[in-house]
C-alpha cells in the first residue's frame, strides 16, 4: 500500500528538490489557504478480495464483500468523473486489484480518459498474458508487494505457499514489458533482518523504486502488533541501512522510506493532512479521506452511488470536513506550533489507540498517552509472541505452532 504523494517519506522530491531542471513539484505550489483543490492522484480500492493473508493488512477490519463492489460500469463512470475533475493519476489497488475480472477493461478506460495508471498488486494472480494485456491497455507503472527476500519468511508472512516465487516471476515480466517497477516492502520485526537483501533483490529485479514501509499499526495490523513491532535497535539499524543505500544507489534505485511512528517524537503528517490532498474510493464506492478511515466508527462516508458528485463529496461532506484544517483540534494540538506541520498526526491511529479520532495522535510526544503506548510497544517488541493472526474473509486464522510445515493455499481468499 502506498501513501501516494503523502509526505511521510524521506525521499520524495519536496520544495527542496534540485531546481536545475526547471521542474517544480506541483504539490508544493499550492497555497495552504486555497480551498481544497482536487488531488493529483486517487487510490481506487477496486476490491477487498485477496489471496494473501498478511497479518498487517491495511484494509479495514470490516471488509467489503464481493457482492457489494462497484460494477464495471460504475467504476468506469468514476474514472471518467475523476479525469474531468482534474485528477491525473489513478492507483488501482485493493485487496488484490487483479482479482477483478474486468481489471484490463478498467485500465483501458483510465487510458481512454487520459489518466496515468498504476497497479498496486500482490502479483500472485497475474499471468504473463494478463500483464501483457494490461500493458497494452496503457498501464504505466507496476508496484509489487514483497514480504521478504526469500520464500521461507515471505510465504509465511503472506500466508500463501509459493507466493514469493510467483512475485519474482511477475517482476521479471514487468521489466520485459518495459514497464517501470516499484518493489513495495512492508517491514516489521520478523523480516527487518532481510532489509539489505531486499534492497539487493530490488536491484537484481531491475526495479526503479523501492518503498520500504514500516507497518502502520491500525486496523488488522493492530491485532498483530505484538508479533510485528520492531525493537528500537532494529529501527536504528534500518535507518542506517536505508540512508546508506539511498546514497549508494542514487540514480539507479530510488528508495522511499516510511518511518515507523511509534518510535518517533513527532507524528507523521498522515495523508498530508485529513482531506487536504488525498482521497480513495472503497470497493463499495465510499469516498474516504484515507484507506483506513472506515475504522473510525461514528463517521458517515458518502458513496459515489449517492446523488452527490465526487467533487461535492470532497469539498462538502461531513466526513472530510470533520478533521480538516486546525479548527477541530483540542489541546495539545490547538496551541501547538507544529499544528500545521503534522495536522495532529493520524486520525485512525488516534481512534484506534485512544477511542477518539479527535485526540492528538499518541505517536506525538505531546500526547498524554504517548509514554504509556510507547512503553507497551517496547515491551511487545522484546516479547516472544511471534504467531500471526492471518487476515482473511473467514474473520482471521491464528497461525499454527508448526506454521512452516502447515502452510497451505488460502482457502478463504479470492
Amino acid at each position: 500500500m502506498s501513501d501516494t504523494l503523502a509526505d511521510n517519506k524521506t525521499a520524495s522530491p519536496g520544495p527542496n528538490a534540485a531546481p536545475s531542471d526547471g521542474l517544480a513539484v506541483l504539490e508544493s505550489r499550492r497555497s495552504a489557504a486555497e480551498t481544497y483543490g482536487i488531488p493529483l492522484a486517487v487510490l481506487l480500492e477496486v476490491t477487498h478480495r485477496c489471496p494473501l493473508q498478511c497479518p498487517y493488512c491495511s484494509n479495514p477490519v470490516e471488509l467489503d464483500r464481493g457482492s457489494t463492489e462497484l460494477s464495471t460500469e460504475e467504476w468506469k463512470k468514476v474514472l471518467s468523473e475523476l479525469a474531468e475533475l482534474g485528477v491525473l493519476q489513478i492507483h488501482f489497488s485493493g485487496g488484490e486489484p487483479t482479482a477483478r475480472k474486468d481489471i484490463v477493461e478498467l485500465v483501458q478506460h483510465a487510458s481512454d480518459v487520459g489518466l496515468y495508471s498504476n497497479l498496486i498488486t500482490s502479483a500472485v494472480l497475474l499471468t504473463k498474458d494478463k500483464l501483457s494485456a494490461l500493458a497494452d491497455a496503457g498501464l504505466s507503472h507496476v508496484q509489487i508487494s514483497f514480504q521478504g527476500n526469500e520464500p521461507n519468511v515471505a510465504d509465511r508472512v503472506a500466508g500463501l505457499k509459493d507466493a514469493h516465487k510467483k512475485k519474482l516471476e511477475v517482476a521479471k515480466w514487468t521489466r520485459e514489458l518495459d514497464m517501470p517497477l516499484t518493489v513495495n516492502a512492508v517491514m516489521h520485526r520478523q523480516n527487518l533482518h532481510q532489509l539489505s537483501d531486499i534492497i539487493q533483490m530490488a536491484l537484481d529485479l531491475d526495479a526503479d523504486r523501492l518503498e520500504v514501509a514500516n507497518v502502520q499499526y491500525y486496523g488488522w495490523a493492530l491485532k498483530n502488533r505484538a508479533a510485528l513491532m520492531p525493537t528500537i535497535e532494529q529501527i536504528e539499524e534500518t535507518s542506517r541501512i536505508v540512508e546508506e543505500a539511498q546514497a549508494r544507489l542514487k540514480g539507479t534505485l530510488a528508495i522511499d522510506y516510511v518511518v515507523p511512528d511509534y518510535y518517533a517524537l513527532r507524528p507523521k503528517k498522515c495523508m498530508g493532512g485529513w482531506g487536504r490532498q488525498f482521497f480513495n474510493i472503497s470497493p463499495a464506492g465510499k469516498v474516504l479521506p484515507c484507506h483506513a478511515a472506515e475504522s473510525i466508527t461514528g463517521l458517515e462516508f458518502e458513496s459515489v452511488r449517492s446523488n452527490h458528485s465526487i467533487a461535492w463529496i470532497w469539498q462538502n461532506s461531513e466526513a472530510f470536513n470533520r478533521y480538516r484544517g486546525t479548527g477541530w483540534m483540542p489541546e495539545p494540538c490547538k496551541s501547538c506550533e507544529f499544528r500545521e506541520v503534522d495536522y495532529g498526526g493520524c486520525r485512525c491511529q488516534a481512534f484506534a489507540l485512544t477511542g477518539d479520532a479527535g485526540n492528538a495522535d499518541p505517536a506525538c510526544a505531546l500526547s498524554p498517552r504517548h509514554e504509556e503506548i510507547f512503553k507497551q510497544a517496547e515491551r511487545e517488541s522484546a516479547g516472544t509472541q511471534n504467531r500471526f493472526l492471518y487476515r482473511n474473509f473467514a474473520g482471521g486464522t491464528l497461525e499454527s505452532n508448526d506454521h512452516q510445515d502447515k502452510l497451505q493455499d488460502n482457502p478463504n481468499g479470492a
Partner: protein
Amino acid sequence: MASRNISVSETSRPKLPRHTKLKFDETRQVWVILAPERVLAPDEIAVEVLQLCDGVRSVAAMVDQLAEKYAAPREAIATDVVAMLQDLADKGFLTEARESTA
C-alpha cells in the same frame, strides 16, 4: 528495456520513456510530467525542450534550433540544455534512443 544512467551529450537523441507522459493539464492550465508516483510541473523552457525530445533529433540539432529561435549564443544554450536534460535523465524522466543492433 529503457536504459538508466544515460550520459547526455550533443550527440544524444533523448526521448521520454514509455512510462513518462508530458501533457497539458486543462484543469490547472499547466504542463505536467506524469511519472510513477510523481506529478511535476516543468517550466516553459523545459516544456519546449522536452517537446523536441523525440528520440530522432539529436541534442545538437535541438540546440541549433533554440539558438536560432532565441537569437542566443549557441554555446550558452548548449550548456543549459545538456545540464537540464542530464538532470531529467538522472531522475528517470528521459531515456535514449538506441542504435539498432540488429
